[in-house]
């Protein structure tokens, strides 16, 4: 939710009409992509356009609105990994939870790589499983729409509230949470 004064507005909130038009355009884009062949030039152009637009939005929405500088983020990440691997002294629930997430992600990537290397019919890769869905027009359109939503969330989500109308581009704090103001020790805004 965006926090403007005491009112809470949804993530990525903009004036209703432009938002509605943007949503309809995105839906039409996904429906159009759904009927394109995987190898067609139009399909490739559409995917590249989507990537370009999302990256552009990330850049436009993000100036001065990251919670940490990259160097501070790397330091925090290194400490978190050390904790998860048991090298740190923190045996908290958060560390144990992080370990389970790491194991799940490693299992997924590891088995996908194993299946890819083996190249056997009874060992499908993750992308082959997705391919079973994207072989259908509706499946390709739905999955493309979900992919677009994910990309926009990654590009615009979890920004510090901006000043003025710029806030409408970038989300801000999630529902029910106030954004924490990073101190100088956390690296400040980036």
């Amino acid at each position: 939710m965006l926090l403007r004064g005491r009112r809470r507005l949804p993530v990525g909130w903009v004036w209703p009409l432009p938002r509605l038009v943007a949503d309809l355009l995105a839906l039409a884009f996904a429906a159009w992509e759904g009927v394109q062949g995987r190898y067609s030039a139009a399909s490739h152009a559409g995917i590249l356009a989507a990537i370009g637009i999302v990256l552009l939005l990330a850049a436009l929405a993000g100036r001065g609105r990251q919670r940490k500088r990259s160097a501070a983020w790397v330091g925090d990440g290194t400490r978190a990994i050390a904790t998860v691997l048991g090298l740190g002294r923190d045996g908290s629930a958060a560390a144990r939870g992080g370990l389970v997430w790491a194991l799940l992600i490693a299992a997924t990537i590891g088995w996908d790589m194993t299946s890819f290397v083996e190249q056997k019919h009874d060992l499908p890769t993750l992308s082959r499983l997705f391919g079973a869905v994207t072989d259908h027009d509706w499946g390709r359109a739905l999955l493309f729409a979900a992919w677009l939503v994910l990309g926009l969330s990654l590009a615009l989500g979890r920004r510090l509230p901006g000043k003025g109308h710029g806030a409408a581009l970038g989300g801000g704090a999630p529902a029910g949470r106030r954004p924490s103001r990073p101190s100088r020790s956390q690296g400040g805004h980036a």
Partner: protein
Amino acid sequence: MTLGAVVWTVIAAGWLAWLVVTRCIRTLPGIGSVVNAFLGSWLGRVLALAAWAEAGWHVFGQRP
């Protein structure tokens, strides 16, 4: 059921179970925390967007 199907089912069940557990036990980090950890800085966000872009290109533009 093939070996691949069994393993993918187990992995998917693990993801689902852990999503439910983290939803129920608030002290454990949820999927939102994992994603948010990446979105905390430009570097993490760029890494996440790069993975997103590559996955999209692979799934929609190449033969999976």
